[in-house]
Protein backbone atom coordinates (compact mmCIF):
# COMPACT_ATOMS: atom_id res chain seq x y z
CA UNK A 1 0.00 0.00 0.00
CA UNK A 2 1.23 3.48 -0.91
CA UNK A 3 0.31 6.84 0.63
CA UNK A 4 0.37 9.81 -1.74
CA UNK A 5 0.49 13.24 -0.08
CA UNK A 6 -0.04 16.28 -2.35
CA UNK A 7 -2.33 19.29 -2.27
CA UNK A 8 -2.80 19.20 -6.05
CA UNK A 9 -5.45 16.67 -6.97
CA UNK A 10 -4.07 16.25 -10.53
CA UNK A 11 -0.69 15.30 -9.17
CA UNK A 12 -2.31 12.78 -6.84
CA UNK A 13 -4.34 11.36 -9.67
CA UNK A 14 -1.39 10.89 -12.03
CA UNK A 15 0.80 9.32 -9.37
CA UNK A 16 -1.99 7.08 -8.07
CA UNK A 17 -2.57 5.80 -11.59
CA UNK A 18 1.11 4.99 -12.02
CA UNK A 19 1.23 3.22 -8.67
CA UNK A 20 -1.91 1.22 -9.36
CA UNK A 21 -0.26 -0.04 -12.55
CA UNK A 22 2.54 -1.27 -10.33
CA UNK A 23 0.04 -3.17 -8.22
CA UNK A 24 -0.17 -0.75 -5.30
CA UNK A 25 -3.29 -0.03 -3.35
CA UNK A 26 -3.24 3.80 -2.98
CA UNK A 27 -4.37 6.03 -0.13
CA UNK A 28 -4.36 9.83 -0.66
CA UNK A 29 -3.87 12.82 1.64
CA UNK A 30 -4.09 16.55 0.85
CA UNK A 31 -1.68 17.88 3.45
CA UNK A 32 0.63 16.92 6.29
CA UNK A 33 -1.91 16.52 9.07
CA UNK A 34 -4.18 14.41 6.86
CA UNK A 35 -1.14 12.30 6.02
CA UNK A 36 -0.61 11.55 9.70
CA UNK A 37 -4.24 10.44 10.11
CA UNK A 38 -4.11 8.25 6.99
CA UNK A 39 -0.80 6.77 8.11
CA UNK A 40 -2.23 5.76 11.50
CA UNK A 41 -5.28 4.22 9.86
CA UNK A 42 -3.72 2.32 6.96
CA UNK A 43 0.00 1.75 7.75
CA UNK A 44 1.34 2.11 4.18
CA UNK A 45 4.53 0.47 2.91
CA UNK A 46 5.79 3.55 1.10
CA UNK A 47 4.98 7.28 1.18
CA UNK A 48 5.24 9.88 -1.61
CA UNK A 49 5.41 13.38 -0.16
CA UNK A 50 4.98 16.82 -1.70
CA UNK A 51 7.11 19.48 -0.03
CA UNK A 52 5.00 22.61 -0.08
CA UNK A 53 1.44 22.23 1.08
CA UNK A 54 -0.97 24.44 3.00
CA UNK A 55 -1.18 23.63 6.71
CA UNK A 56 1.46 21.13 7.76
CA UNK A 57 4.07 20.95 5.01
CA UNK A 58 5.91 17.85 3.81
CA UNK A 59 9.04 18.42 5.89
CA UNK A 60 7.18 18.64 9.19
CA UNK A 61 4.89 15.74 8.31
CA UNK A 62 7.93 13.61 7.50
CA UNK A 63 9.45 14.26 10.91
CA UNK A 64 6.23 13.12 12.61
CA UNK A 65 5.85 10.10 10.33
CA UNK A 66 9.37 8.90 11.03
CA UNK A 67 8.64 9.08 14.76
CA UNK A 68 5.35 7.24 14.28
CA UNK A 69 6.90 4.43 12.25
CA UNK A 70 9.47 3.79 15.00
CA UNK A 71 11.62 0.75 14.24
CA UNK A 72 9.68 -0.10 11.06
CA UNK A 73 11.26 1.25 7.94
CA UNK A 74 8.63 3.08 5.86
CA UNK A 75 10.45 4.85 3.02
CA UNK A 76 9.39 8.44 2.30
CA UNK A 77 10.14 9.78 -1.19
CA UNK A 78 9.84 13.53 -1.70
CA UNK A 79 8.26 14.74 -4.91
CA UNK A 80 9.58 18.20 -5.49
CA UNK A 81 9.59 20.90 -8.08
CA UNK A 82 12.45 22.56 -6.21
CA UNK A 83 15.83 22.04 -7.75
CA UNK A 84 18.20 23.99 -5.50
CA UNK A 85 20.62 21.92 -3.40
CA UNK A 86 19.51 23.44 -0.12
CA UNK A 87 15.91 22.29 -0.53
CA UNK A 88 16.97 18.77 -1.40
CA UNK A 89 19.28 18.66 1.61
CA UNK A 90 16.41 19.78 3.85
CA UNK A 91 14.21 16.96 2.57
CA UNK A 92 16.78 14.36 3.56
CA UNK A 93 17.45 16.09 6.89
CA UNK A 94 13.75 15.99 7.75
CA UNK A 95 13.92 12.18 7.44
CA UNK A 96 13.17 11.70 3.75
CA UNK A 97 14.81 8.67 2.15
CA UNK A 98 14.92 9.85 -1.48
CA UNK A 99 13.48 12.50 -3.76
CA UNK A 100 12.09 12.75 -7.24
CA UNK A 101 12.13 15.99 -9.19
CA UNK A 102 8.89 16.85 -10.90
CA UNK A 103 8.08 16.09 -13.60
CA UNK A 104 9.23 12.48 -13.58
CA UNK A 105 8.68 9.53 -15.91
CA UNK A 106 7.02 6.30 -14.97
CA UNK A 107 10.27 4.36 -15.42
CA UNK A 108 12.19 6.60 -13.02
CA UNK A 109 9.43 6.22 -10.42
CA UNK A 110 9.46 2.47 -10.90
CA UNK A 111 13.21 2.15 -10.41
CA UNK A 112 13.10 4.35 -7.29
CA UNK A 113 10.42 2.09 -5.83
CA UNK A 114 12.52 -0.99 -6.55
CA UNK A 115 15.53 0.63 -4.86
CA UNK A 116 13.47 1.59 -1.83
CA UNK A 117 12.01 -1.89 -1.55
CA UNK A 118 15.51 -3.25 -1.58
CA UNK A 119 16.51 -0.96 1.30
CA UNK A 120 13.31 -1.79 3.15
CA UNK A 121 13.87 -5.55 2.81
CA UNK A 122 17.41 -5.16 4.07
CA UNK A 123 16.14 -3.08 6.95
CA UNK A 124 13.50 -5.66 7.86
CA UNK A 125 16.03 -8.44 7.61
CA UNK A 126 18.40 -6.66 9.97
CA UNK A 127 15.58 -5.76 12.35
CA UNK A 128 14.51 -9.41 12.51
CA UNK A 129 18.12 -10.45 13.18
CA UNK A 130 18.40 -7.81 15.88
CA UNK A 131 15.28 -9.05 17.59
CA UNK A 132 16.61 -12.58 17.49
CA UNK A 133 19.98 -11.43 18.79
CA UNK A 134 18.36 -9.50 21.61
CA UNK A 135 16.38 -12.59 22.52
CA UNK A 136 19.48 -14.77 22.50
CA UNK A 137 21.43 -12.24 24.54
CA UNK A 138 18.66 -12.19 27.10
CA UNK A 139 18.61 -15.98 27.29
CA UNK A 140 22.37 -15.98 27.61
CA UNK A 141 22.25 -13.36 30.34
CA UNK A 142 19.67 -15.31 32.29
CA UNK A 143 21.70 -18.48 31.97
CA UNK A 144 24.81 -16.68 33.17
CA UNK A 145 22.92 -15.42 36.19
CA UNK A 146 21.54 -18.87 36.90
CA UNK A 147 24.92 -20.50 36.45
CA UNK A 148 26.47 -17.85 38.65
CA UNK A 149 23.95 -18.64 41.38
CA UNK A 150 24.55 -22.38 41.17
CA UNK A 151 28.27 -21.81 41.02
CA UNK A 152 28.46 -19.52 44.02
CA UNK A 153 26.30 -21.91 46.00
CA UNK A 154 28.40 -24.94 45.18
CA UNK A 155 31.73 -23.19 45.49
CA UNK A 156 31.56 -20.16 47.75
CA UNK A 157 28.96 -21.15 50.31
CA UNK A 158 31.09 -23.98 51.58
CA UNK A 159 34.07 -21.76 52.33
CA UNK A 160 35.07 -21.15 55.93
CA UNK A 161 36.84 -18.43 57.89
CA UNK A 162 35.79 -15.84 55.29
CA UNK A 163 35.37 -13.10 57.87
CA UNK A 164 38.97 -13.51 59.04
CA UNK A 165 40.54 -13.53 55.60
CA UNK A 166 41.05 -10.43 53.48
CA UNK A 167 39.46 -11.31 50.16
CA UNK A 168 39.48 -9.47 46.84
CA UNK A 169 37.72 -11.21 43.96
CA UNK A 170 36.82 -9.22 40.84
CA UNK A 171 35.60 -11.22 37.89
CA UNK A 172 36.08 -9.85 34.38
CA UNK A 173 32.96 -11.71 33.19
CA UNK A 174 29.97 -12.77 35.28
CA UNK A 175 31.53 -16.16 35.64
CA UNK A 176 34.80 -16.11 37.47
CA UNK A 177 37.89 -17.93 36.25
CA UNK A 178 39.47 -17.20 39.62
CA UNK A 179 38.54 -19.53 42.40
CA UNK A 180 38.98 -19.18 46.16
CA UNK A 181 38.35 -22.13 48.44
CA UNK A 182 38.83 -22.45 52.18
CA UNK A 183 38.08 -25.35 54.48
CA UNK A 184 39.04 -26.73 57.90
CA UNK A 185 40.75 -30.03 58.44
CA UNK A 186 39.24 -32.23 61.18
CA UNK A 187 41.71 -30.85 63.74
CA UNK A 188 40.77 -27.26 62.91
CA UNK A 189 43.77 -26.52 60.68
CA UNK A 190 42.94 -24.14 57.82
CA UNK A 191 43.48 -24.93 54.15
CA UNK A 192 43.10 -22.29 51.43
CA UNK A 193 43.29 -22.68 47.67
CA UNK A 194 43.47 -19.80 45.21
CA UNK A 195 43.09 -20.98 41.62
CA UNK A 196 43.16 -19.28 38.23
CA UNK A 197 41.69 -21.10 35.23
CA UNK A 198 42.99 -20.28 31.78
CA UNK A 199 40.63 -17.99 29.88
CA UNK A 200 37.55 -16.35 31.30
CA UNK A 201 33.85 -16.78 31.76
CA UNK A 202 31.81 -19.95 31.65
CA UNK A 203 34.36 -22.13 29.91
CA UNK A 204 36.95 -21.14 32.48
CA UNK A 205 34.76 -21.70 35.49
CA UNK A 206 33.35 -25.04 34.42
CA UNK A 207 36.24 -26.91 36.02
CA UNK A 208 35.65 -25.14 39.32
CA UNK A 209 32.87 -27.48 40.44
CA UNK A 210 34.91 -30.71 40.53
CA UNK A 211 37.82 -28.81 42.09
CA UNK A 212 35.63 -27.36 44.84
CA UNK A 213 34.03 -30.73 45.50
CA UNK A 214 37.33 -32.54 45.86
CA UNK A 215 38.87 -29.74 47.91
CA UNK A 216 36.05 -29.42 50.44
CA UNK A 217 35.22 -33.06 50.96
CA UNK A 218 38.82 -34.28 51.14
CA UNK A 219 39.94 -31.45 53.41
CA UNK A 220 37.08 -32.05 55.82
CA UNK A 221 38.21 -35.67 56.02
CA UNK A 222 41.75 -34.63 56.86
CA UNK A 223 43.33 -35.84 53.62
CA UNK A 224 46.95 -34.73 53.17
CA UNK A 225 47.86 -31.82 50.86
CA UNK A 226 49.56 -33.89 48.18
CA UNK A 227 46.67 -36.33 47.96
CA UNK A 228 44.16 -33.49 47.51
CA UNK A 229 46.35 -31.97 44.80
CA UNK A 230 46.73 -35.34 43.09
CA UNK A 231 42.99 -35.77 43.04
CA UNK A 232 42.28 -32.27 41.72
CA UNK A 233 44.96 -32.72 39.07
CA UNK A 234 43.50 -36.05 38.00
CA UNK A 235 39.98 -34.64 37.81
CA UNK A 236 41.01 -31.59 35.80
CA UNK A 237 43.18 -33.63 33.47
CA UNK A 238 40.16 -35.80 32.77
CA UNK A 239 37.57 -33.04 32.24
CA UNK A 240 39.51 -30.16 30.70
CA UNK A 241 40.68 -29.99 27.07
CA UNK A 242 44.43 -29.96 26.47
CA UNK A 243 44.80 -26.19 26.29
CA UNK A 244 42.92 -25.57 29.53
CA UNK A 245 44.39 -25.88 33.00
CA UNK A 246 44.32 -24.27 36.41
CA UNK A 247 47.17 -22.43 38.06
CA UNK A 248 46.78 -22.80 41.80
CA UNK A 249 48.24 -21.92 45.15
CA UNK A 250 47.32 -24.14 48.07
CA UNK A 251 48.33 -23.51 51.67
CA UNK A 252 47.65 -25.37 54.89
CA UNK A 253 48.05 -23.64 58.26
CA UNK A 254 48.41 -26.29 60.98
CA UNK A 255 46.43 -25.47 64.11
CA UNK A 256 49.26 -27.00 66.13
CA UNK A 257 51.55 -24.16 64.99
CA UNK A 258 53.88 -26.29 62.86
CA UNK A 259 55.29 -25.38 59.44
CA UNK A 260 53.11 -23.81 56.80
CA UNK A 261 52.63 -26.29 53.96
CA UNK A 262 52.44 -24.57 50.59
CA UNK A 263 52.18 -25.54 46.97
CA UNK A 264 52.48 -23.15 44.02
CA UNK A 265 51.69 -24.37 40.51
CA UNK A 266 52.05 -21.53 38.05
CA UNK A 267 50.80 -18.68 40.25
CA UNK A 268 52.67 -15.45 41.03
CA UNK A 269 54.87 -15.57 44.15
CA UNK A 270 53.00 -15.93 47.42
CA UNK A 271 54.25 -13.37 49.93
CA UNK A 272 54.90 -14.09 53.59
CA UNK A 273 55.18 -10.90 55.62
CA UNK A 274 57.06 -11.55 58.87
CA UNK A 275 58.92 -9.50 61.44
CA UNK A 276 62.14 -9.48 59.39
CA UNK A 277 60.58 -8.65 56.03
CA UNK A 278 59.01 -10.35 53.05
CA UNK A 279 59.62 -13.92 51.96
CA UNK A 280 58.53 -15.13 48.53
CA UNK A 281 56.96 -18.49 47.79
CA UNK A 282 57.71 -18.98 44.08
CA UNK A 283 56.00 -21.33 41.66
CA UNK A 284 57.68 -24.73 41.81
CA UNK A 285 55.12 -26.98 40.16
CA UNK A 286 53.23 -27.35 36.90
CA UNK A 287 49.68 -26.02 36.94
CA UNK A 288 46.94 -28.57 37.59
CA UNK A 289 45.30 -30.53 34.78
CA UNK A 290 48.22 -30.61 32.34
CA UNK A 291 49.82 -33.97 33.05
CA UNK A 292 47.94 -37.09 34.19
CA UNK A 293 50.06 -37.39 37.35
CA UNK A 294 51.93 -34.87 39.46
CA UNK A 295 55.65 -35.51 39.56
CA UNK A 296 57.73 -35.93 42.66
CA UNK A 297 59.22 -32.45 42.41
CA UNK A 298 55.69 -31.07 42.55
CA UNK A 299 55.35 -32.04 46.22
CA UNK A 300 54.15 -29.38 48.68
CA UNK A 301 56.88 -27.45 50.51
CA UNK A 302 57.21 -26.24 54.06
CA UNK A 303 58.07 -23.00 55.72
CA UNK A 304 58.16 -22.07 59.40
CA UNK A 305 55.45 -19.64 60.39
CA UNK A 306 54.81 -17.59 63.49
CA UNK A 307 51.68 -16.09 64.95
CA UNK A 308 51.32 -12.56 63.62
CA UNK A 309 52.83 -13.35 60.20
CA UNK A 310 50.70 -12.59 57.17
CA UNK A 311 50.40 -14.42 53.88
CA UNK A 312 49.22 -12.89 50.62
CA UNK A 313 48.20 -14.92 47.58
CA UNK A 314 47.35 -13.23 44.29
CA UNK A 315 46.39 -14.09 40.71
CA UNK A 316 48.22 -12.67 37.72
CA UNK A 317 45.16 -10.58 36.83
CA UNK A 318 46.15 -8.27 39.69
CA UNK A 319 49.71 -7.74 38.48
CA UNK A 320 48.57 -7.32 34.86
CA UNK A 321 45.71 -4.90 35.53
CA UNK A 322 46.41 -1.97 33.21
CA UNK A 323 45.97 1.72 33.75
CA UNK A 324 44.77 4.13 31.05
CA UNK A 325 48.30 4.21 29.58
CA UNK A 326 48.54 0.44 29.40
CA UNK A 327 50.98 0.14 32.31
CA UNK A 328 50.63 -3.04 34.39
CA UNK A 329 49.89 -2.71 38.12
CA UNK A 330 52.83 -5.04 38.83
CA UNK A 331 55.13 -2.39 37.33
CA UNK A 332 53.28 0.56 38.85
CA UNK A 333 51.90 0.79 42.40
CA UNK A 334 52.59 -2.81 43.42
CA UNK A 335 56.35 -2.81 44.23
CA UNK A 336 56.06 0.17 46.56
CA UNK A 337 53.02 -1.32 48.25
CA UNK A 338 54.95 -4.50 49.04
CA UNK A 339 58.07 -2.61 50.11
CA UNK A 340 56.05 -0.73 52.73
CA UNK A 341 54.13 -3.73 53.98
CA UNK A 342 54.73 -4.70 57.60
CA UNK A 343 53.06 -7.53 59.43
CA UNK A 344 51.32 -5.32 61.97
CA UNK A 345 48.82 -4.12 59.40
CA UNK A 346 46.64 -5.50 56.65
CA UNK A 347 47.72 -4.95 53.07
CA UNK A 348 44.29 -5.33 51.55
CA UNK A 349 42.89 -1.85 52.19
CA UNK A 350 45.91 0.02 50.75
CA UNK A 351 46.03 -2.55 47.93
CA UNK A 352 42.42 -1.83 46.99
CA UNK A 353 43.01 1.90 47.12
CA UNK A 354 46.11 1.71 44.97
CA UNK A 355 44.47 -0.68 42.49
CA UNK A 356 41.35 1.47 42.13
CA UNK A 357 43.46 4.57 41.52
CA UNK A 358 45.50 2.62 38.97
CA UNK A 359 42.52 1.18 37.08
CA UNK A 360 40.40 4.34 37.04
CA UNK A 361 38.70 4.84 33.63
CA UNK A 362 39.72 1.43 32.25
CA UNK A 363 37.89 -1.78 31.44
CA UNK A 364 38.97 -4.79 33.43
CA UNK A 365 40.60 -7.37 31.14
CA UNK A 366 41.20 -10.31 33.44
CA UNK A 367 39.82 -11.66 36.69
CA UNK A 368 41.54 -10.15 39.69
CA UNK A 369 41.93 -12.24 42.83
CA UNK A 370 43.83 -11.79 46.08
CA UNK A 371 43.55 -13.24 49.55
CA UNK A 372 45.40 -12.12 52.66
CA UNK A 373 45.60 -14.53 55.56
CA UNK A 374 46.72 -13.19 58.94
CA UNK A 375 48.14 -15.98 61.11
CA UNK A 376 46.02 -15.62 64.24
CA UNK A 377 44.03 -18.06 66.33
CA UNK A 378 40.85 -16.74 64.69
CA UNK A 379 41.53 -18.38 61.34
CA UNK A 380 41.37 -21.89 62.75
CA UNK A 381 38.28 -24.01 63.16
CA UNK A 382 37.30 -25.70 66.39
CA UNK A 383 39.14 -28.93 66.91
CA UNK A 384 36.04 -30.96 67.66
CA UNK A 385 38.00 -34.12 67.27
CA UNK A 386 41.02 -33.36 69.39
CA UNK A 387 44.49 -33.85 67.99
CA UNK A 388 44.86 -35.92 64.88
CA UNK A 389 47.88 -38.21 64.99
CA UNK A 390 50.64 -36.72 62.93
CA UNK A 391 51.06 -38.42 59.62
CA UNK A 392 54.28 -37.25 58.05
CA UNK A 393 54.21 -38.36 54.46
CA UNK A 394 51.07 -40.31 55.04
CA UNK A 395 47.36 -39.78 55.06
CA UNK A 396 44.88 -39.76 57.87
CA UNK A 397 41.18 -39.54 58.39
CA UNK A 398 38.87 -39.44 61.35
CA UNK A 399 35.24 -40.02 62.02
CA UNK A 400 33.30 -39.10 65.11
CA UNK A 401 30.03 -40.84 65.92
CA UNK A 402 27.68 -39.52 68.56
CA UNK A 403 24.58 -40.71 70.37
CA UNK A 404 22.03 -42.02 67.87
CA UNK A 405 24.67 -42.64 65.22
CA UNK A 406 26.72 -44.92 67.44
CA UNK A 407 24.80 -48.02 66.43
CA UNK A 408 26.15 -47.85 62.89
CA UNK A 409 29.59 -49.42 62.94
CA UNK A 410 31.76 -47.60 60.40
CA UNK A 411 33.30 -49.75 57.68
CA UNK A 412 36.96 -49.68 56.74
CA UNK A 413 36.14 -49.47 53.03
CA UNK A 414 34.02 -46.43 53.74
CA UNK A 415 36.79 -44.71 55.68
CA UNK A 416 39.55 -45.58 53.21
CA UNK A 417 37.54 -44.58 50.14
CA UNK A 418 38.27 -40.84 50.38
CA UNK A 419 41.97 -41.53 51.02
CA UNK A 420 42.22 -43.44 47.76
CA UNK A 421 43.76 -46.39 49.55
CA UNK A 422 41.17 -49.02 48.84
CA UNK A 423 43.08 -50.53 45.96
CA UNK A 424 46.45 -50.32 47.63
CA UNK A 425 45.17 -52.14 50.70
CA UNK A 426 42.93 -54.53 48.79
CA UNK A 427 44.45 -57.75 50.16
CA UNK A 428 44.41 -56.44 53.73
CA UNK A 429 40.95 -54.93 53.66
CA UNK A 430 39.28 -58.02 55.13
CA UNK A 431 41.63 -58.18 58.10
CA UNK A 432 41.40 -54.44 58.67
CA UNK A 433 37.59 -54.62 58.60
CA UNK A 434 37.78 -57.21 61.35
CA UNK A 435 40.15 -55.14 63.47
CA UNK A 436 38.00 -52.05 63.18
CA UNK A 437 34.77 -53.92 63.77
CA UNK A 438 36.03 -55.70 66.89
CA UNK A 439 37.58 -52.62 68.44
CA UNK A 440 34.54 -50.50 67.68
CA UNK A 441 32.13 -53.10 69.00
CA UNK A 442 34.15 -53.29 72.19
CA UNK A 443 34.10 -49.55 72.64
CA UNK A 444 30.38 -49.41 71.97
CA UNK A 445 29.26 -52.35 74.07
CA UNK A 446 31.55 -51.93 77.04
CA UNK A 447 32.53 -48.28 76.92
CA UNK A 448 29.24 -46.65 75.97
CA UNK A 449 26.52 -49.23 76.66
CA UNK A 450 28.34 -50.60 79.72
CA UNK A 451 27.39 -54.20 78.99
CA UNK A 452 29.42 -56.73 81.03
CA UNK A 453 30.96 -59.39 78.82
CA UNK A 454 30.54 -62.15 81.45
CA UNK A 455 26.86 -62.06 80.59
CA UNK A 456 27.78 -64.10 77.55
CA UNK A 457 29.00 -67.00 79.71
CA UNK A 458 25.89 -69.11 79.19
CA UNK A 459 23.73 -69.64 76.11
CA UNK A 460 20.83 -67.85 77.82
CA UNK A 461 23.11 -65.06 78.94
CA UNK A 462 24.49 -64.84 75.44
CA UNK A 463 21.12 -64.03 73.97
CA UNK A 464 20.19 -61.90 76.97
CA UNK A 465 23.32 -59.89 76.26
CA UNK A 466 22.21 -59.10 72.74
CA UNK A 467 18.64 -58.38 73.79
CA UNK A 468 20.00 -55.95 76.34
CA UNK A 469 22.30 -54.47 73.72
CA UNK A 470 19.35 -53.84 71.43
CA UNK A 471 17.28 -52.22 74.13
CA UNK A 472 20.09 -49.97 75.33
CA UNK A 473 20.76 -48.87 71.77
CA UNK A 474 17.06 -48.30 71.17
CA UNK A 475 16.85 -46.21 74.36
CA UNK A 476 19.22 -43.73 72.75
CA UNK A 477 22.78 -44.11 73.91
CA UNK A 478 24.65 -41.03 75.03
CA UNK A 479 28.32 -40.55 74.26
CA UNK A 480 30.73 -40.58 71.39
CA UNK A 481 33.24 -42.84 69.70
CA UNK A 482 35.96 -41.46 67.58
CA UNK A 483 37.86 -43.49 65.00
CA UNK A 484 41.20 -42.30 63.64
CA UNK A 485 42.85 -44.09 60.77
CA UNK A 486 46.40 -43.11 59.83
CA UNK A 487 48.29 -44.69 56.97
CA UNK A 488 52.02 -44.48 56.54
CA UNK A 489 53.29 -45.82 53.26
CA UNK A 490 55.89 -48.52 53.48
CA UNK A 491 57.05 -50.96 52.61
CA UNK A 492 55.45 -52.36 54.50
CA UNK A 493 52.58 -49.89 54.80
CA UNK A 494 51.35 -49.32 58.32
CA UNK A 495 47.80 -48.63 59.39
CA UNK A 496 47.21 -47.21 62.83
CA UNK A 497 43.66 -47.47 64.07
CA UNK A 498 42.85 -45.50 67.21
CA UNK A 499 39.45 -45.73 68.84
CA UNK A 500 38.48 -43.43 71.66
CA UNK A 501 35.20 -43.64 73.52
CA UNK A 502 33.58 -41.30 75.99
CA UNK A 503 32.80 -44.10 78.50
CA UNK A 504 34.17 -44.82 81.95
CA UNK A 505 36.85 -47.29 80.91
CA UNK A 506 37.39 -50.84 82.16
CA UNK A 507 40.03 -52.94 83.80
CA UNK A 508 42.31 -53.63 80.89
CA UNK A 509 45.22 -54.65 83.07
CA UNK A 510 44.10 -58.27 83.19
CA UNK A 511 45.96 -60.09 80.45
CA UNK A 512 43.59 -61.69 77.94
CA UNK A 513 43.78 -65.40 77.41
CA UNK A 514 45.42 -66.46 74.17
CA UNK A 515 42.85 -67.32 71.52
CA UNK A 516 44.09 -70.90 71.15
CA UNK A 517 43.40 -71.93 74.74
CA UNK A 518 40.29 -69.85 75.36
CA UNK A 519 37.12 -71.85 75.57
CA UNK A 520 34.98 -69.02 76.83
CA UNK A 521 32.31 -67.73 74.48
CA UNK A 522 33.36 -64.15 75.07
CA UNK A 523 36.56 -62.21 74.92
CA UNK A 524 37.48 -63.46 71.45
CA UNK A 525 37.24 -60.17 69.75
CA UNK A 526 40.28 -58.50 71.22
CA UNK A 527 42.26 -61.71 71.05
CA UNK A 528 41.52 -61.89 67.38
CA UNK A 529 42.65 -58.31 66.91
CA UNK A 530 45.91 -59.12 68.72
CA UNK A 531 46.49 -61.99 66.32
CA UNK A 532 46.01 -59.77 63.30
CA UNK A 533 47.88 -56.73 64.50
CA UNK A 534 51.47 -56.00 65.36
CA UNK A 535 50.38 -54.35 68.57
CA UNK A 536 47.22 -53.48 70.46
CA UNK A 537 47.46 -51.07 73.37
CA UNK A 538 44.87 -49.67 75.71
CA UNK A 539 45.34 -46.44 77.52
CA UNK A 540 43.37 -43.76 79.37
CA UNK A 541 41.70 -46.33 81.63
CA UNK A 542 40.68 -48.37 78.64
CA UNK A 543 38.79 -45.58 76.89
CA UNK A 544 41.34 -45.51 74.13
CA UNK A 545 42.84 -48.32 72.13
CA UNK A 546 45.46 -48.17 69.44
CA UNK A 547 46.04 -51.05 67.05
CA UNK A 548 48.95 -51.08 64.64
CA UNK A 549 48.57 -53.21 61.54
CA UNK A 550 51.35 -53.90 59.08
CA UNK A 551 50.57 -54.73 55.48
CA UNK A 552 52.84 -57.78 55.19
Amino acid at each position, binding site marked *: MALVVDDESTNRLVLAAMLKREGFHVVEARNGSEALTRFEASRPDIIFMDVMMPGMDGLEATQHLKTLSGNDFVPIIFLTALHDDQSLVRCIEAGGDDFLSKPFSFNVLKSRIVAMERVRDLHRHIAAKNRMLARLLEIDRQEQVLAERIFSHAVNDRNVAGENLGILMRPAATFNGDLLLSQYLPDGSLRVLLG*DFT*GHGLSAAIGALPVADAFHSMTRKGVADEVVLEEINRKLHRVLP*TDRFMCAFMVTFPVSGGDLRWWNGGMPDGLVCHAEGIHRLASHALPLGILPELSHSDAPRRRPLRMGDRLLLITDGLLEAQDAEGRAFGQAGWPELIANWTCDRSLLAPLLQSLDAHCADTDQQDDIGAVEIPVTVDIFGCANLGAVPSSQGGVACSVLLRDGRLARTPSMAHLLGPLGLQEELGAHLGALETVLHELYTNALEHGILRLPSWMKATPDGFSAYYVERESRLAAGPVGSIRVDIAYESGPPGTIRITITDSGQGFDFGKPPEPLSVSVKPWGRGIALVRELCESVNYCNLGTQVEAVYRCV
Partner: protein
Amino acid sequence: MSISRQVDSGNALVIINIEGRFDFSEHRPFRDAYRDIAPGSVRFLVDLSRADYLDSSALGMLLLLREHAGTDAGRVTIRGCTEDVLRILRIANFDRLFILE
Protein backbone atom coordinates in the same frame (compact mmCIF):
# COMPACT_ATOMS: atom_id res chain seq x y z
CA MET B 1 49.29 -11.62 10.50
CA SER B 2 51.94 -12.17 13.05
CA ILE B 3 52.39 -15.91 12.76
CA SER B 4 54.41 -17.50 9.98
CA ARG B 5 56.07 -20.83 9.52
CA GLN B 6 58.92 -22.43 7.64
CA VAL B 7 59.12 -26.12 6.92
CA ASP B 8 62.63 -27.56 6.96
CA SER B 9 61.79 -30.96 5.49
CA GLY B 10 65.42 -32.05 5.36
CA ASN B 11 65.62 -31.90 9.13
CA ALA B 12 61.97 -32.83 9.73
CA LEU B 13 61.58 -29.53 11.53
CA VAL B 14 58.82 -26.93 11.42
CA ILE B 15 59.66 -23.45 12.59
CA ILE B 16 56.77 -21.29 13.79
CA ASN B 17 57.55 -17.57 14.14
CA ILE B 18 55.38 -15.44 16.36
CA GLU B 19 55.45 -11.68 16.29
CA GLY B 20 53.84 -9.23 18.73
CA ARG B 21 51.25 -10.37 21.28
CA PHE B 22 50.81 -14.12 21.56
CA ASP B 23 47.30 -14.42 22.97
CA PHE B 24 43.91 -15.88 22.23
CA SER B 25 43.45 -13.88 19.04
CA GLU B 26 46.28 -15.97 17.54
CA HIS B 27 44.47 -19.20 18.29
CA ARG B 28 43.47 -19.95 14.70
CA PRO B 29 46.64 -18.87 12.87
CA PHE B 30 48.75 -20.74 15.40
CA ARG B 31 46.77 -23.92 14.93
CA ASP B 32 46.82 -23.48 11.16
CA ALA B 33 50.60 -23.36 11.36
CA TYR B 34 50.81 -27.04 12.31
CA ARG B 35 47.56 -28.85 11.79
CA ASP B 36 48.26 -29.92 8.21
CA ILE B 37 51.37 -31.70 9.43
CA ALA B 38 50.91 -35.33 10.39
CA PRO B 39 50.84 -35.69 14.19
CA GLY B 40 54.06 -36.92 15.71
CA SER B 41 55.99 -36.77 12.43
CA VAL B 42 58.28 -33.78 12.92
CA ARG B 43 59.88 -31.63 15.58
CA PHE B 44 58.74 -28.06 16.13
CA LEU B 45 60.66 -24.92 16.90
CA VAL B 46 58.57 -22.04 18.19
CA ASP B 47 60.46 -18.80 17.72
CA LEU B 48 59.28 -16.18 20.18
CA SER B 49 62.15 -13.74 19.68
CA ARG B 50 59.76 -11.18 18.23
CA ALA B 51 56.89 -11.92 20.63
CA ASP B 52 56.61 -9.34 23.38
CA TYR B 53 53.76 -10.82 25.38
CA LEU B 54 52.31 -14.21 26.10
CA ASP B 55 49.17 -14.98 28.11
CA SER B 56 47.73 -18.10 29.63
CA SER B 57 45.75 -18.99 26.53
CA ALA B 58 49.06 -18.98 24.64
CA LEU B 59 50.33 -21.47 27.22
CA GLY B 60 47.29 -23.55 26.36
CA MET B 61 48.06 -23.28 22.65
CA LEU B 62 51.62 -24.45 23.30
CA LEU B 63 50.18 -27.47 25.13
CA LEU B 64 48.02 -28.24 22.09
CA LEU B 65 51.09 -28.07 19.87
CA ARG B 66 52.94 -30.34 22.29
CA GLU B 67 50.11 -32.84 22.06
CA HIS B 68 50.15 -32.65 18.28
CA ALA B 69 53.93 -33.07 18.13
CA GLY B 70 53.89 -36.05 20.47
CA THR B 71 54.39 -35.55 24.16
CA ASP B 72 57.78 -37.23 24.51
CA ALA B 73 60.54 -34.89 25.51
CA GLY B 74 62.32 -32.78 22.94
CA ARG B 75 59.68 -32.59 20.24
CA VAL B 76 58.92 -28.91 20.82
CA THR B 77 61.60 -26.31 21.37
CA ILE B 78 60.86 -22.71 22.29
CA ARG B 79 63.49 -20.23 21.19
CA GLY B 80 64.35 -16.61 21.74
CA CYS B 81 62.11 -15.78 24.67
CA THR B 82 62.25 -12.22 25.92
CA GLU B 83 62.67 -11.66 29.64
CA ASP B 84 58.91 -11.19 30.16
CA VAL B 85 57.93 -14.21 28.13
CA LEU B 86 60.55 -16.36 29.83
CA ARG B 87 59.25 -15.29 33.23
CA ILE B 88 55.74 -16.46 32.37
CA LEU B 89 57.01 -19.79 31.01
CA ARG B 90 59.12 -20.30 34.13
CA ILE B 91 56.27 -19.46 36.54
CA ALA B 92 54.15 -22.06 34.79
CA ASN B 93 57.16 -24.44 34.98
CA PHE B 94 56.86 -25.09 31.27
CA ASP B 95 60.62 -25.73 31.15
CA ARG B 96 59.64 -29.26 32.15
CA LEU B 97 57.42 -29.75 29.12
CA PHE B 98 59.39 -27.91 26.46
CA ILE B 99 63.02 -27.28 25.64
CA LEU B 100 63.66 -23.59 26.31
CA GLU B 101 66.62 -22.31 24.32
